[in-house]
């Protein structure tokens, strides 16, 4: 095995092009587990922690660009005000030790259906910025994640950043697990309101091969909000509409039975989360406390 430690982004891209077998590593919270357990023996490790730009984030024109090496701890601390759902999801990742090291870039690279940061990124309409010696391209996160642990990254590409529109309204993220900490999601859900564009977005995590946008549910509730003039009146969403929204989110899930849960429980739980989170974001929009 080789240990490649480029000092600049350009060197990193060259190293990636020369060593398609190399495994990029930043926080190591996924990669080192594979190595420690002898599940993986990549030809090389490509350590990206020496490249300062990857640990930077910034805001421009209503978009937050988060370098692939920004830790969950820093997202919670520094970016949380702009991206509430991503911060909520980051808070549910592992433990302080894991949040100090793990990154959204790594979560995208691993592309696990249970990746906690993915539902908020889907709900926000985020884009993944990927680079190679051939150039830079941006891919919507929905096109980036292709299947369980599969993504659109070419052999010579590295994830440089994720670009996320600043929240345009209240957002929520919730996760079901058997403990409060150190748990892989049984299922999760992100819900966001785009107050400017009068849109509702909902994305299910860990209840399908990839995160799933609940588009029918989104369309249904947008219809209710428009027809009943609720964006203007800031009135309550009726029980029946909340229930129907939850049902449509539940129907959008494509869960399996596995060691963490039955499919049936996942489906049920996703519905419960949908009803609660929609009520919470709407309550916040109306001017009350979210919880």
């Amino acid at each position: 095995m080789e240990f490649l430690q480029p000092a600049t982004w350009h060197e990193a891209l060259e190293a990636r092009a020369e060593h398609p077998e190399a495994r990029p590593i930043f926080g190591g919270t996924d990669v080192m587990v594979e190595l420690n357990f002898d599940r993986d023996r990549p030809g090389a490790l490509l350590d990206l922690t020496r490249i300062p730009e990857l640990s930077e984030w910034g805001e421009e024109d209503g978009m937050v660009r988060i370098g692939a090496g920004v830790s969950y701890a820093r997202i919670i601390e520094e970016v949380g005000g702009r991206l509430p759902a991503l911060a909520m999801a980051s808070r549910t990742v592992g433990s302080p030790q894991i949040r100090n090291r793990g990154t959204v870039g790594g979560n995208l690279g691993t592309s696990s259906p249970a990746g906690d940061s993915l539902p908020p990124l889907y709900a926000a309409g985020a884009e993944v910025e990927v680079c190679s010696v051939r150039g830079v391209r941006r891919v919507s996160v929905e096109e980036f994640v292709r299947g369980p642990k599969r993504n659109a990254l070419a052999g010579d590409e590295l994830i440089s950043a994720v670009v996320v529109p600043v929240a345009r309204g209240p957002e929520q993220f919730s996760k079901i697990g058997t403990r409060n900490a150190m748990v892989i999601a049984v299922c999760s859900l992100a819900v966001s309101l785009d107050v400017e564009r009068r849109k509702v977005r909902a994305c299910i995590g860990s209840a399908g091969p990839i995160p799933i946008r609940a588009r029918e549910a989104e369309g249904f509730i947008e219809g209710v909000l428009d027809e009943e003039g609720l964006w203007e009146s800031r009135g309550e969403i009726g029980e029946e509409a909340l229930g129907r929204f939850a049902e449509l989110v539940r129907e959008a899930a494509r869960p399996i039975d596995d060691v963490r849960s039955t499919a049936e429980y996942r489906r049920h739980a996703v519905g419960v989360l949908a009803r609660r989170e929609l009520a919470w974001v709407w309550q916040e929009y109306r001017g009350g406390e979210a919880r």
Partner: protein
Amino acid sequence: MRLRLEVNGEVREVEGVWEGESLLYVLRERLGLYGSKNACEQGECGSCSVYLDGVLVCSCLVAAGQAEGREVVTVEGLAEGDGLHPVQEAFVEAGAVQCGFCTPGFVVATHDLLSRNPEPTDAEIREALAGNLCRCTGYEKILDAVRRAAERVRV
């Protein structure tokens, strides 16, 4: 490969490190620092917690090469001289040490918590220590130890 890093204030050089090796392995097997324990090797138990450039991490999840030129502080580096650090004393006094296997990780994580938050609430203690597992104390004594340490030290 060859590695040079600062451990507990001392520059250490190590030869023949395998590229896929963890920092934990280097600390224990190559530098003889057995305080950090090797238990789960997947970041679940926290018994290998150390500071890497001042940040609390699981040393089993840091590739050795990533620590090149960095500063590591292990549980051995917390106390000055032969005495115990006040956090360590509090663990002993509260009976938070039973088999002792998880203790070094808990001590480093507690040290980190108190350095950021000298007066944590019980909920904050629980959240801060959520990455450290213990199979014998039942955690109550550990919570006592952290409260006791918080009263006594400003780390």
